[in-house]
């Protein structure tokens, strides 16, 4: 009686192993972060990534105990909600300034976001700037 090649079984087991690695990781690790705008925070607390526009004045120093302070508004100021941010960490990127769109990651508690990371967005390549007069 011809014996079946074990090759298919081994390949099937390899596929199963790859899937198992993925599923186990997804089940065990909790590496996703809610990404919200200031108006979407609501009653959430804990680790968040907040997308918004920087509202000045920007005061303080990211390296000091008090940290750097600013506020975030909804993108395009869709809703008149502000979130106060106390940022401690690496220097913000050079493009960081009032009016710039940013993503601040940190922990939200008692109405304030304790930020630990800032990403600013590159100036848009894919929308046309208004021409100068």
């Amino acid at each position, binding site marked *: 009686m011809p014996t079946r090649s074990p090759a298919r079984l081994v390949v099937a087991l390899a596929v199963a192993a790859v899937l198992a690695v993925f599923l186990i990781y997804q089940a065990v690790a909790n590496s996703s972060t809610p990404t919200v705008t200031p108006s*979407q925070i609501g009653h959430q607390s804990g680790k968040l990534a907040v997308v918004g526009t920087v509202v000045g004045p920007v005061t303080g120093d990211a390296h000091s105990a008090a940290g750097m302070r600013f506020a975030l508004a909804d993108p395009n100021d869709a809703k008149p909600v502000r979130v106060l941010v106390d940022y401690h960490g690496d220097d913000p990127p050079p493009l960081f300034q009032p009016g710039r*769109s940013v993503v601040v990651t940190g922990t939200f508690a008692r109405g304030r976001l304790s930020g630990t990371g800032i990403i600013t967005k*590159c100036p848009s*390549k894919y929308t*046309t700037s208004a*021409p*100068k007069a």
Partner: protein
Amino acid sequence: MADLGRAALVVTLGLALYALVAGGYAAHTNRRRLADSARNALVCAFGSTLVAALVLLAALARHDFSFQYVAAHTNRTLSTGYALSALWAGQEGSLLLWLLILTGYGALAVFVNRTLLRDLVAWVVPVLGGVASFFAFVLVAVASPFKTQVPPVDGAGLTASLQNPYMVAHPPMLYLGYVGLAVPFAFAAGALLSGRTDERWIVATRRWTLAAWTFLGFGQILGAHWAYVEVGWGGYYAWDPVENAALMPWLAATAFLHSVMIQERKGMLKVWNVVLVALAFELSVFGTFLTRSDVVNSIHSFAKSPIGGWFLAFVVISSLFSLALILLRLPLLKARTKLESALSREATFLYNNLLLVALCLTVLWGVLFPVLTQLVKGETRTIGRPYYDFFLRAFGLPLLLLMGIGPLIAWRRTSVRALLRTLAWPIGVSVVCGAALVLAGAGSSRPGLIAYTFSAFVLATIVVEVVRGTRAVGSVFTLVARNRRRYGGYVVHAAVVLLAIGIAGSSAYGRSTEQRLLPGQTMRFDGYRLTYRGVTRVNTPQALETRAHLDVSGRWNGSIATGTNDYKFPPEPNKKVAIETDWLRGEDLYVIADIRNSGAVYFTVLVKPLVNLIWLAGIVFVLGSLVAMWPDAREQRRLVTRLAPARASA
């Protein structure tokens, strides 16, 4: 002249639609002259797109601000080189470049294969015509680069971070890769549409796929290098969705390049290969959709663009078309032979494919996760770096190992005894290397140590292969000349090893610190002494250049300056980091300064071991690909003999 550009694009759209409709009809009804006419239309589409591109380039060179695009992306102080590179600096221009490359590739592919593969080309033309029609439509109706206005006094200028040689080269390289994947896709679709079961489409597109894959890979290395030297955060890859958009089709194409060898030799994996080539193409268009919509948060993407929806529709329609075609032709795609052994080169190629596709889909899951959570749960959740790092190790390290085992394992089947005998030297070398690395202190990072050890293993197998092959054949030159694909592939493997060592070294063994210094103060870190001397400010026509100056001694002696450039047109600050490379130790001293008005400066100092191997890997990668792609006259003659129509016997 804008009218000429507009008219040229309308002509391109018309020609592409003709290639699609007439070409499809001709292929279906077997009409030679109509098929040739459709092929000519595709070639002419390249010509008319070239006219459009030249019109825009001329406007950029002349600073013709009556073109809205020129005013938005250049100004009078911009040099001619950067002004011309603004062709791909914005939405409309980059789409025009995409269409130019697509029609150029398409014209060349159908022209080169017009005689030997006439029947197949007849089906390829409408597929390429369909893709070109979409891009031409977007340029004509949605995002035209030829919108005009009353010319302003000056333009808005080019973003400062894009005024960099690497950023000039990075988009064209990527596009040559992305768009190049359309050619093997079109040939695969053409083969399925024509109902042929032979491997002609693979043979015809082998070098196209390799070239596109090389451009895509090298383009990513260029982008990583730009991020490292220009963006100034100390890293080179952030797992940003737009970066991942280039990585995913590259991974799918890598899997395809390997599995296609099995189909050529064994007649197996036919379904898998057409799925892979379709996946690579769809992911390349999907990547364009990601960069031009605001679907996912990225440092690269911004305000919503009107073309996002169109691209999504195209991806959906073309994916459904590919799926339907594959399902319809499934009976033709039956394998001729079976996998004989789990311990064979075919099997290792299969395992490698599984890991590559798994990594690709893992990255895709991470990119789409925010969209999916929003759709399913109503809240957006993003996945961070730890997710990607985990799977890069989980799938990448076994891939590295397979890269070493695969070349030394025989086709069809190998016994365990034979395999162990062949791997004895590489295993020995890697064990010795691993032990030496542990003694040298590399045991502080387990993934780093594993990556280094596996890299030593792969390098040793490559050396064993070359030495044994040379002994069997007589000279290494003859060996490589007669087996270009195989040994070019080994050079590419060596490049991947360099990449792995560079990534492991700079990430797993990198060190950093941060300190605030006043003028005259010194910081010590990792064998370096850095003394802050003071700040200088130089006002140039383009920017205010602020630099903090440091004297460095210890492991390297010299002076460095780091700070920011505050550009004037457009107004935008840009970090200027200081990078000093110690070629003997193979490490970079990387210093970032945050200069305060008080005179104090916060210095972030990073030591990045072996990071320059990543850039060297890019060069080796291209060399290996060139060897693999190099034409072989003997092979060509053999293919012509195989593909030429049989002569009627006397």
